[in-house]
C-alpha cells in the first residue's frame, strides 16, 4: 500500500502510467460525447413544456456537475499534497483549476441561454445560477492566489489551503443560497427517488455526464504530463526523454 502511494508520488512513474491511460479516456470521452449529443439533440423527445429548448440540459447539467466535482477533486489533491507532500497531486490540482473555471463558465453561459426561452431573460438571480457564479469566483480566487506567489512551493501550499477552505464552504454557500431563493426546477438527478424525466431523455444525459467526466480525466492527465515535464525539466529522466543526454 505505502509502496504504491510512493510510486504514485513519483512524477516519472505517473508520466509513464498516464501515457498508457490517457488514450483510453480520450477515446471514451469522444465516443460518449458524440453518442450523447446525437442522441440528446436529435433523437430524444422534445419536452412537453419547454419544447426543444430543454436540450441545452445536455450541455448545462454535465458542465455544472463537472464544475462542482473539479473543485472537490482540487481540494482532495490539495489535501494529498499538504499531508503526503506528493508533488504530482499539486500539479494535477494546478492543472484542474482552469478547466473547472471554464466548466463553471459553460454552465453559467448555457444557463443564461436557457433562461431566454424559459424565463424570458438572460439572467435571473436564481439559487443555482447564483451559487454557480460564487463557485466561479472561488475558482478565480484559487487561480489568482497561485499566480500571486513568486515561490512555487508557497503558491502550491497556499492554493491547497484555499481550495480546502473553499470546499468546506461550498455546501454552506449552496444551502444558504438555496434557502435565500428557490425558483429553479427541482434537482435533475436525485439519489433517493426515480428521476422525473422519462428514460429516453434521461439516458443521453447520463451518457453526456460520463463523457464529460472522461474528458475531464483525459485533459487533466494530458496537462499534468506537460506540467511534469516543465517542472522536472532539469531531471535526468526528462533530459533523456528529450534526447539531450544519451
Amino acid at each position, binding site marked *: 500500500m505505502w509502496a504504491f502511494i510512493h510510486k504514485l508520488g513519483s512524477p516519472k512513474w505517473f508520466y509513464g502510467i498516464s501515457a498508457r491511460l490517457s488514450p483510453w479516456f480520450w477515446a471514451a470521452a469522444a465516443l460518449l460525447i458524440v453518442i450523447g449529443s446525437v442522441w440528446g439533440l436529435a433523437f430524444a423527445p422534445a419536452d412537453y413544456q419547454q419544447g426543444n429548448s430543454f436540450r441545452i440540459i445536455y450541455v448545462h447539467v454535465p458542465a455544472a456537475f463537472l464544475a462542482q466535482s473539479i473543485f472537490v477533486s482540487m481540494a482532495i489533491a490539495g489535501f494529498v499534497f499538504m499531508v503526503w507532500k506528493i508533488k504530482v497531486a499539486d500539479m494535477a490540482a494546478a492543472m484542474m483549476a482552469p478547466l473547472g473555471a471554464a466548466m463553471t463558465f459553460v454552465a453559467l453561459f448555457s444557463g443564461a441561454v436557457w433562461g431566454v426561452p424559459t424565463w424570458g431573460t438572460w439572467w435571473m438571480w436564481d439559487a443555482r445560477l447564483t451559487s454557480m457564479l460564487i463557485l466561479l469566483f472561488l475558482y478565480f*480566487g484559487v487561480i489568482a*492566489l497561485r499566480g*500571486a506567489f513568486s515561490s512555487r*512551493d508557497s503558491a502550491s*501550499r497556499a492554493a491547497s489551503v*484555499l481550495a480546502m477552505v473553499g470546499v468546506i464552504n461550498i455546501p454552506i454557500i449552496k444551502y444558504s443560497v438555496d434557502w435565500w431563493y428557490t425558483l429553479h426546477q427541482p434537482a435533475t438527478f436525485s439519489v433517493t427517488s426515480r428521476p422525473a424525466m422519462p428514460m429516453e431523455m434521461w439516458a443521453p444525459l447520463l451518457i453526456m455526464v460520463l463523457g464529460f467526466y472522461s474528458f475531464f480525466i483525459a485533459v487533466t492527465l494530458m496537462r499534468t504530463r506537460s506540467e511534469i515535464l516543465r517542472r522536472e525539466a532539469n531531471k535526468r529522466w526528462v533530459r533523456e526523454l528529450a534526447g539531450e543526454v544519451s
Partner: protein
Amino acid sequence: MPNSDPHLARERDAVSLFGEPEGGAGVAIRATLKRDLVLLMRRRSEVLNPLVFFALVITLFPIGISPDPELLATIAPGLLWVAALLAALLSLDSLFRSDYEDGSLEQLLLSPHPLPALALAKVAVHWLLTGLPLALMAPVLGIMLALPAGSYAVLALSLALGSASLSLIGAIGAALTVGLSRGGVLLSLLVLPLYIPVLIFGAGAVQAAIFGEGVAAHLAILGALLAVALILAPWAIAASLRISING
C-alpha cells in the same frame, strides 16, 4: 525517535537554559491579546477608518439612489450589512501586515505555544475593535436610512455575531496574502465569496425583524456559522501564516 534528534535536543537544552516560559499557553494568549489591544489603541486611526468608511458608504446610497425614505427603508437591511461587510474587509489587510513587516509575526510562529490559539487571540482583538464598533454604529446609520423601528437591536446583534465570523474567515485570507506586496485586491477576491452565507443570514435576520417574523432562527444559524468558523478557522489561519512566513 525524539531522543536521537540533535535539533530537538538542542531546543531542549535551550529551554532548560532559559527556563520554561512561565504559565504556558494561557499567559501567551493573554500577552498577545494585550499587546494587540495596546497597539491598536495607539493607532486610533486604524480603528476609526473602517467606521468612517462605513458611514461614508451609507451616505453614498441615498445620493446615488434616491432620498425617498420608503425606498431606503426596503433596501436598508441589505445596504447596512453590505457596507459593514466591506468596512470589515477593508480593515483585514492590516491584521497581520505590521506584524509581518516588523518581524513579530515570525516570533509568534517561533513561540512554543500553539499558533492557532495565538492567531485566535489576534482575531478576537480585531473583532473587538472593528466588528463590535461597526455593530454598535449600525443602528445610528439605520436611523438615517429610515430603517423601520423594532429592527435596531436585531441589526446590532446580527452584525456583532456575523462580524465575528467575518473576522475569522477574513483572517484566513489575510494570512494567505500577508507575504504578498499587493495583497489587497486579491484578499477581497479570496474572502468575499466566503462571506456570502453570513451576509444572507445577517441581512435575513434584519428583514425578518422588519416583517415581524421570528429572528431566533437566523441568529441561531449565524451562531452556528460562528461556531464552525471558531473550530476550523484558527487552524487554517495558522497553516496560512506558516506558508506566508516560510515562503
